[in-house]
């Protein structure tokens, strides 16, 4: 096999990697991970984990998973010459193993007090030997693109460049829909960026029957004269008509062409939109006899799921309200929206607009795919791009709006949480919004023009196709002296991350990819003997991933 390059997108909810044939300039294969390997559901959890348990541990888990991805790409490692990564600054810093605390603390004084020196986040060309644990030939090049400013990462740059936002003359907003939603608003020559922890609901996580895009996943529903038709991903990952269901009862009206296994993030948006239109959802309640919306006999959507989805949708809406306020414009001035990321590509754009994921006054919506992986791929094929992007980054007149410090965001998000989770009526929302002098949330455009640039978020999966890593990272084991083996920690874990080992050993097995991390710690809190200590868990692998028994499907 000829010379090979690796493009990596380190997303908050999972990694995506591609093997590239450098001579024929073509894509060989694609690998997706089902989850992020670090405990936690968002970047703040990841940061917190790295700070509490140590950067080295977090770095080594991330690199082990990168090795796992490369392993799954099934290319001769010795032929790999280049690797380029893209992602937000936190993920890239964890990958590189450099200081991250500057990203955790916003206040300058706090940083000074703690002796934190922000590292250089300019574009870098390293070698594999510079990255501890990375199993590539030592001389292989590793490219890390520049952050625009230290808070505005390469992923935001990728989103702006690959969506063509920079060429758009109208007021436009680009959003990368993910667990951490990046957004950039362009008004004339001015660009304001922001980034909010939307949570994982739009990736299908934290939803009772949520799942990533995989065979059996419902990604859309459409009303018919009787019932609702589920659109499901087939074994070939194509959308096919699934069962015709009665959302109000656990029955199937008519069998479809594919079984239903769960709901993707885009499915969640579709269910919310269609159920609201059919008066089956009146926030925050589901108006069916058992307060559930049924997609057949096994899969359903709950009121808890509405709250989870509302957190994500609300965070994103609060995000663009904040950016509009910052730019001194009304939401109705935003005429064009670009939707990036997997969710942004697969979602029905009109439904996304109706539920609030897109600025309400847009006339045109472009669905642009995974820009982060696309940028990494550009760099692998043409390393000079790295420096072109660096100079572009320096020229950009960008301002970053820290949502965490913005009173506008705080107020807008509070209204969103009240709307989605507490049943605040719309009139009250608008009254408060007016009182807070927020940009007015107008009625969504009825028929925007939707331009879908690619059929898939990753348009070309390569001639060998795509593989999934269901089990990301490795299981670690911990023994607490004094543990009675009562199993309370296992029972209380909301993500089923804990288990007893098969032998009768009183120790606990932990899957870090499932663990909700330091923000959860229900295992520790609920331990009746008070001997479970999250901080004592060694998340370092005893044996490398490649030697562990992984479950994956191709």
């Amino acid at each position, binding site marked *: 096999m000829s010379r090979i390059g690796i493009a990596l997108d380190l997303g908050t909810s999972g990694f995506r990697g591609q093997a590239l044939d450098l001579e024929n300039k073509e894509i060989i294969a694609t690998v997706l991970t089902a989850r992020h390997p670090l405990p936690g559901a968002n970047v703040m959890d990841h940061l917190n984990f790295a700070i509490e348990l140590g950067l080295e541990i977090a770095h080594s888990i991330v690199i082990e998973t990168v090795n796992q991805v490369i392993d799954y790409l099934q290319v001769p490692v010795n032929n790999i010459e280049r690797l380029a990564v893209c992602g937000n600054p936190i993920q890239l810093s964890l990958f590189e193993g450099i200081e991250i605390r500057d990203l955790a603390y916003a206040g300058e004084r706090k940083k000074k007090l703690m002796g934190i020196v922000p590292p250089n986040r300019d574009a870098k060309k390293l070698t594999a030997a510079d990255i501890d644990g990375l199993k590539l030939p030592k001389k292989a090049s590793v490219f890390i693109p520049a952050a625009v400013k230290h808070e505005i990462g390469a992923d935001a740059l990728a989103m702006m460049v690959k969506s063509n936002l920079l060429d758009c003359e109208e007021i436009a907003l680009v959003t990368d829909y993910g667990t951490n939603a990046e957004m950039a608003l362009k008004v004339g020559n001015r660009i304001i960026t922001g980034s909010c922890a939307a949570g994982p609901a739009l990736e299908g996580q934290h939803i009772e029957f949520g799942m990533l895009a995989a065979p059996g996943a419902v990604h859309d529903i459409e009303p018919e004269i*009787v*019932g609702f038709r589920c659109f499901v991903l087939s074994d070939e990952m194509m959308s096919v008509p699934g069962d015709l269901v009665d959302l109000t009862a656990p029955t199937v*009206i*008519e069998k479809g062409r594919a079984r239903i296994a769960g709901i993707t993030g885009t499915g969640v948006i579709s269910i919310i939109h269609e159920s609201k239109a059919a008066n089956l959802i*009146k926030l925050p309640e589901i108006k069916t*006899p058992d307060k559930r919306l049924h997609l057949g006999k096994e899969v359903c959507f709950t009121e808890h799921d509405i709250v989870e989805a509302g957190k994500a949708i609300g965070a994103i809406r609060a995000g663009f309200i904040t950016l509009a306020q910052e730019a001194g414009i009304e939401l109705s001035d935003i005429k064009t929206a670009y939707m990036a990321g997997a969710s942004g590509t697969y979602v029905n754009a009109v439904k996304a607009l109706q539920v609030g994921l897109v600025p309400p006054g847009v006339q045109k919506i472009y669905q642009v795919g995974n820009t982060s992986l696309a940028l990494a791929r550009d760099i692998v094929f043409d390393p000079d791009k790295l420096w072109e992007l660096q100079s572009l980054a320096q020229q950009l007149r960008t301002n970053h709006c820290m949502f965490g410090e913005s009173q506008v965001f705080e107020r807008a998000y509070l209204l969103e949480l009240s709307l989605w989770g507490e049943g605040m009526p719309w009139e009250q929302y608008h009254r408060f919004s007016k009182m807070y002098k927020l940009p007015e949330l107008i009625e969504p455009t009825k028929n925007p023009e939707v331009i879908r640039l690619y059929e898939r978020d990753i348009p070309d999966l390569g001639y060998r196709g795509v593989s999934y890593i269901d089990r990301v990272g490795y299981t670690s084991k911990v023994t607490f002296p004094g543990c009675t083996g009562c199993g309370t920690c296992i029972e209380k874990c909301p993500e089923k991350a804990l288990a007893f080992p098969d032998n009768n050993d009183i120790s606990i097995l932990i899957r870090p990819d499932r663990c909700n991390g330091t923000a959860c710690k229900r295992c520790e809190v609920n331990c009746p003997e008070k001997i479970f200590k999250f901080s004592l868990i060694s998340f370092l692998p005893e044996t490398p991933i490649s030697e562990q028994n992984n479950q994956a499907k191709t």
Partner: protein
Amino acid sequence: MPKFEKMAYASSDEMIFGTAKNPVKYGRDFTVGGGYVFPELVPHPRPGTEATKKTLVKEYEKMVTDVLDRCVAIGIPGIQIELEHVYQMTRNPDWGGEIAAETKRLQEEYYRKFGLKSAIRATIADYRKPDEEDIRNSVALENMLKTFETSAAGGADNLSIESVGGKEISDYTIVRQDIRGTLFGIGVLGSRDMEFMWKKVVEIANKYGATPGGDTNCAQANVAMFMAGGYQDRSVPHTFAALTRAIAAARTLVAYEQGAKGPTKDCGYEDVIIKAITGNPISMEGKTCACAHSDLLGNLVAACCDLWSNEAVEYHDMFGGTTVAVFTEILGYDVALMNTAIEMGHAKILKELMVQSDKYRDTHGFILCPENAYEIGKAIVSNNTSYYARARAAAIKAGELMLGDSNLQMSAFEKESLQSAMRTLESLPDKEEDFISECADIYKKLIPGFTLANYGL
């Protein structure tokens, strides 16, 4: 097909408790709607006593004796006792017959000894299962018809039933606030099943010289009303339950078109509308049925009643005697007050007090206050081209009345639900055949076991 074309009363002002245009006389010198109100007591046997015929007959004997004794003890001049069948009484026709005969024996004894006027209503249990069997040709139907006969032969003066046609549809639609399906289940299927059933009931009543009494939409409209519940409940909107009640009126009317004479069945809250159209005497229940269920029109519903009932009370001991005796006493004093108002010429004032105490308490009382009930009745008779047309018209009229009176307070939740139902009602096809064909396609898919053949379609 619908028969009533005009109202029995010229206006709701004419309607009053104790008097009906067509009084009914039966039993032991017992006249209903002839100028005075009488109590109707419904005793319910304790669980376990239905195990054998012997224990159940004994239970009824004790209950009926307690009721009649209390009437004599406090001077109640007359009473109707309803034998509301538990399943076993209908399933075994001879049980129903024997209990009717025993009740008659006791009533005759009290009439002879004390001059206590009395009558018996036998209400047969409709235990057909529309989603599981051919309800026009089933063992259940056969038993029910036999039990009508044995009851009439045993001495029941009034034959009634709570029929369940269309319940398989309304059970699905009410909890989902699907007004189209509710209109289909009650207004169309319910009406068609009533026509089928009541032809047979009237035939049997005539054969035995009994009076065909009436039917109630207990299985459907009362389900909606109970689920709507009190002010704190939101599982079914109160406005939706009120629309269901208006539809039920168009359906319950079918019994009287087929020859039923009344007094109507007590738990049919829609009977005020029935009285306005037919002039037949009605039996009602309100505050005195709190032993069985709560409602929000405890006084108002008595405004036009001819019998005043307690719905059902299980037989137990209380400090003041057994439950059936205690409720006989409560009903007795209630009707004594009404009859005294009649005697003293203050009936209209008492009627007005009853109405005003509940008219704006809830949507159900609002649409059933005599003036609004009368308007709904007019909508029914002036749209008598089909069962569907008149049921739909009744619902639309009820909705318009609710939206048109600013004194009726509704939460945004209630109002939105009503407006949404009204939009659906307005958008439905004009012709019954179009509506049936539209609904058949939908509900055949949604409700396993639903078949049009059960309704002669």
